[in-house]
């Protein structure tokens, strides 16, 4: 393996595939998307197959993730927002599983690709826009006109609201992508220090202890970040969906 910290983000073709002159190859990224879906769906499917009235430990994990997202969405977007539950639940489970799988050494981190996180963010914002206009028509544009703002300030406020809305898909995707990317690079760099320093004999091995401790601590932190970023993505999705469900009332 290379000591280059960006090597882990390289996309390699596994099964070359080209449709209409566009490269749709099955890559290691595709493989880990499949693995993510397989792991998440498999876990949820197998742990709940007993349909136990008294849940086993693993079944409680599935139930807890269900109730966690359900309460998050109900608080964020109200009971009308519950129709988006499958979407938010899928997003959360997909991102969480992808982040956690990325923590396994030599595994590819799907969410460290900006195009993936951007696609997910566009999916969220697209849903907000489509549902907002479908449900409220042009009334959805009230979203950009906060109530109780003095007339003189209104153009400025509306401009700010529109810019903030447009920046949502960018901030949503870059937040997740940058967190995963930076975390993995930092881990790789510190772990690289351990290897490089221990090549310098006894003194180097002694000096390698510090980056080793750092690597262990960062690994713990990265697990936290893996969960936290999935949570943040889901919470923000709930908030944006709330705008689609209740555009007027903030």
């Amino acid at each position, binding site marked *: *393996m*290379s*000591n*280059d910290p*960006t*090597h882990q*983000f*390289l*996309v*390699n073709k596994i099964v070359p*595939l080209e449709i209409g002159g*566009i*490269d*749709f*190859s*099955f*890559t290691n*990224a*595709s493989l880990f*998307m*499949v693995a*993510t*879906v397989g792991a*998440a*769906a498999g876990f*949820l*499917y197998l742990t*709940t197959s007993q*349909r*136990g*009235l008294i*849940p086993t430990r693993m*079944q409680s994990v*599935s*139930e807890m993730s*269900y*109730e966690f997202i359900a309460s998050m969405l109900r608080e964020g977007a109200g009971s009308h927002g519950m129709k988006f*539950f*499958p*979407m938010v*639940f*899928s997003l959360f*489970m*997909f991102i969480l599983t992808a982040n956690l799988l990325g923590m396994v050494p030599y595994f590819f981190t799907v969410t*460290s*690709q*900006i*195009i*993936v996180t951007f*696609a*997910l963010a566009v*999916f969220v914002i697209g849903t907000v826009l489509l549902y907002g206009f479908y449900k409220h028509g042009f009334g959805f544009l009230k979203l950009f006109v906060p109530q109780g703002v003095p007339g003189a300030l209104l153009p400025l406020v509306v401009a700010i609201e529109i810019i903030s809305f447009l920046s949502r898909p960018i901030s949503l995707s870059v937040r997740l*992508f940058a967190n995963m*990317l930076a975390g993995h690079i930092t881990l790789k760099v510190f772990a*690289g220090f351990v*290897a*490089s320093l221990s*090549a310098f004999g006894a003194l180097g091995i002694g000096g390698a202890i510090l980056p080793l401790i750092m690597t262990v601590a960062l690994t713990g932190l990265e697990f936290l970040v893996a969960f936290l970023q999935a949570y943040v993505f889901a919470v923000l999705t709930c908030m944006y969906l709330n705008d689609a469900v209740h555009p007027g009332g903030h």
Partner: protein
Amino acid sequence: MFVTAAYAQSSTTEGAEAHDAAAAGEVHTETGVAHEADHGAGVFPPFDTTHFASQLLWLAITFGLFYLLMSKVIIPRIGGILETRHDRIAQDLDEASRLKGEADAAIAAYEQELASARAKGHSIADTAREAAKSKAKADRDGVEAGLAKKIAAAEARIADIKSKALADVGAIAEETATAVVKQLIGGTVTKAEIAAAFKASAGN
């Protein structure tokens, strides 16, 4: 970085082999990074646009499949489990409150029964006590009456005996006096005299 530079090259050139043939001169002039970015772009891997189409397609396929699985299988299932449990708990609570009501009713009935039994017991005890008391009184009265009769009879006999004895005492005293007089004086005293003397002494 020091140890594995050569190693990195060897591992990544495998992937670059296909390209090597086409762009041999270009690839070999660069370091490991250029080898890895074997599409000639040499950019930071996450910003390498060559794979964007493939990533989007496979994300759409996998996430779409995942979404379908979640919305058609997993969510109804977990929702069903939770609802069943919720219903079961509500049902159990209802059952428990019903049983509690029954238990309360049973306790009330028991208390009532106990109270009536206690009252009945009291009345039975009272009547029994009354009956025993009156019987004892009657018995005592009977016994007392019998005793009084016996006492009266005994007293009558005693009086009879006493009077008889007292009558005998006179005759004995007369005889004794006759004998005493005879011994002392030597003469004889008639019975009539003795009797007279007695009468005189008795009259004192």
